[in-house]
């Protein structure tokens, strides 16, 4: 995601959640809206996309923090199945609040499935960024690329450091 973090007031607002299956317990619009969830078992790019690698399939989406900063997502453009994605290159775009923002692939590979629900319900990215708001599933061409991505704690720290820089 082509975004940076909020100002320092949210620097300590990131928390870890133990698994994706519990993410429904994290209300999307709680009183303390500055809190964003960062899930265990996921890897994160410094452009705020996440990857969940299970067997030969990697699922990709954007983080809770990213969707929070975007605002209401009204449209998503995604690649077609069987197309290729390349690490650090954009593979699509989201539209929110008068802006289009690039979505950058954290890994390289072949797109084997696209979340077609996002065509009619782009808001799933806001309400369920780690589950129903997934964007593409990829067959990684170079699984070693996953090792260069951040784990949950590192991503949390990354976000805090970006906050502090502003």
């Amino acid at each position, binding site marked *: 995601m*082509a975004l940076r973090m909020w100002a320092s007031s949210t620097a300590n607002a990131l928390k870890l959640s133990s698994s994706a299956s519990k993410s429904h317990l994290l209300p999307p619009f709680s009183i303390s809206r500055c809190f964003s969830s960062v899930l265990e078992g996921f890897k994160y790019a410094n452009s705020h996309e996440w990857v969940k690698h299970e067997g030969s399939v990697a699922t990709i989406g954007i983080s809770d923090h990213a969707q929070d900063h975007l605002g209401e997502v009204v449209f998503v453009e995604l690649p077609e199945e069987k197309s290729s994605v390349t690490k650090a290159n954009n593979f699509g775009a989201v*539209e929110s*609040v008068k802006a289009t923002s690039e979505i950058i692939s954290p890994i390289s590979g072949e797109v084997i499935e696209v979340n077609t629900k996002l065509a009619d319900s782009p808001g799933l990215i806001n309400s369920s960024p780690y589950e129903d708001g997934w964007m593409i599933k990829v067959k990684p061409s170079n699984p070693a690329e996953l090792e260069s991505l951040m784990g949950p704690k590192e991503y949390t720290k990354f976000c805090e450091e970006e906050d502090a820089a502003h």
Partner: protein
Amino acid sequence: MRVKNVGVPLMNLVKLRGTPILQQLLLEERLLRSSSANWCILNDGTNLPTIVMGFSGKPCELVELQPVLRDRIPVIKRFTGGGTVIVDENTLFVSLICNRNDLPDVLPYPPSLMAWSGSLYSQVFNGIGDFQLRENDYVFGDRKFGGNAQSITRNRWIHHTSFLWDYSETNMSYLKLPSKVPQYRLGRDHTDFVCRMKDYIERSVFIENTIKAVGTQFMLKELSLDEIDDSCREHLETTRLLTLDELKETLAKTSRSESIAQAV
């Protein structure tokens, strides 16, 4: 090329007049994606009435297709988000393309960019007409005269604006009322919602003040269109002119859907 002088980044200034809006948008998309410089593009009117939709715009929802096809009004889909406008020789365009690192205090996400631009234009209008940024629009009081849109990439962003210097009611009738309207519109019809910038400021004064305001944050270097390096063409290009066939097909589908709905 970026050069810093006394901590102020460089920005290339390109002043156009009557440049076709498709050409302007294609240039902007190329500069956003392929250039590493900062750019301010001013286009003083465009040559033909043209409808410009945002990235996700659907003609059937936003455009009165029958008169548009009848009168051969061009319809463009641009690379930035936001709504639909019809532009002509009485529309002024200001586009700002920046490296995020050259404005480190401006966070590169929509609300922050919008706030920064609102602050910039506050300098331009300097108290004229109760200027303010209101729900992403530029208004005098509660009447809109400027619409904004953005595109944000990994390291750069564009914020561009179309200003209603003047407008034709006939041209406005080619557009449908969008399903999403700002809250401050309060159900007003078009004539009560928008206003003409010419009633508030001289055209030359607006252009001069805009250049001056941008010049408080950047060192400006004027370039002509011919001086822009266009050797790099390997970039994603999403801005395009919709074809007549596309528009006709959309109208046909819409008519069929409406017929079925009426029959049921």
